[in-house]
């Protein structure tokens, strides 16, 4: 059967002078013959405790390495997913913050210009309604200002004062006590 291992696992086995088949044989021998508790029960320092700890350590290390294998082989997908999520969020925020408000402002300016021209034409007795093209009823985009499109300055917190040195903090603390 084909088993996938990390290349780092093979390096670790080589450090222990083992190959995967030999490690498998040792592991399989222990299976079914080892204690399956997860905490030491024997009295610390005794040979029984050392033997118990040998099994506990082997199980904990194998479990940790399985976890490490899963994490290492999925970490790339997780990082790509995070980068993609951040990129899409960023692009949508830019669209919401910059592109759409600019287009709406351009539309507001055009509508104002149209109204001025219509008034001037009306003063000359020309019916501006007969001059097209026109936007079908109910199809005009709402150009009222939305939150964030006003010109008011953004609220900002004042910058923090510079951090006091250890000596200054000590002097201040002592002067409070005096």
């Amino acid at each position, binding site marked *: 059967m084909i088993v996938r291992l990390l290349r*780092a696992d093979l390096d670790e086995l080589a450090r222990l002078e083992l190959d995967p088949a030999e*490690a498998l044989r040792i*592991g*399989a021998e222990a*299976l079914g013959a080892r204690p399956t508790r997860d905490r030491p029960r024997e009295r610390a320092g005794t040979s029984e405790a050392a033997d118990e700890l040998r099994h506990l350590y082997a199980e904990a290390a194998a479990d940790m*390495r399985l976890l*490490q294998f899963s994490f290492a082989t999925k970490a790339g997908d997780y990082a790509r997913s995070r980068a993609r999520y951040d990129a899409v969020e960023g692009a949508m925020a830019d669209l919401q913050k910059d592109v759409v408000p600019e*287009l709406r402002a351009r539309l507001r300016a055009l509508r104002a210009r149209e109204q001025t*021209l219509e008034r001037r034409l009306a003063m000359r007795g020309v019916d501006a309604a007969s001059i097209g*093209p026109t936007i079908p009823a109910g199809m005009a985009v709402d150009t009222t200002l939305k939150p964030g499109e006003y010109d008011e300055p953004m609220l900002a917190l004042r910058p923090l004062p510079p951090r006091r040195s250890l000596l200054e903090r000590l002097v201040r603390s002592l002067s409070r006590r005096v």
Partner: protein
Amino acid sequence: MSLGLPPADVVEVELQLAKVRRDELAPEDDETLLRYLVYLGAAYVEADRASTYDRLHRLFGAVGSRAAVLRFHYGEQARGFAEEKRAHAAHERMAGAYEGLVEKIEAEIALREERVRKLEAALER
């Protein structure tokens, strides 16, 4: 934060699984079981080399800490991954809505620019 994860460089190894007495700690899936047994065998060799109780105790503590850190971060990232997958569908809907809005505004701008030109021309007559 660096987790000290090894590179995701995977190698395939051909191994045979003889009859084993599975216990309650052994994984059920065959490939995972084989991988686990390789790790278990290596860990027994490491434990045998540690020899003293104190050294084994330190190794046991260290591996427990490492597992706890990995489990926490793995859980966090897996949860983030699931949320990002769910958000992806919402993102696509929002992106489609914005795209539609931008197209609609651009179409209205083009119409109104044309009308403004015609109104200006009418005024000049």
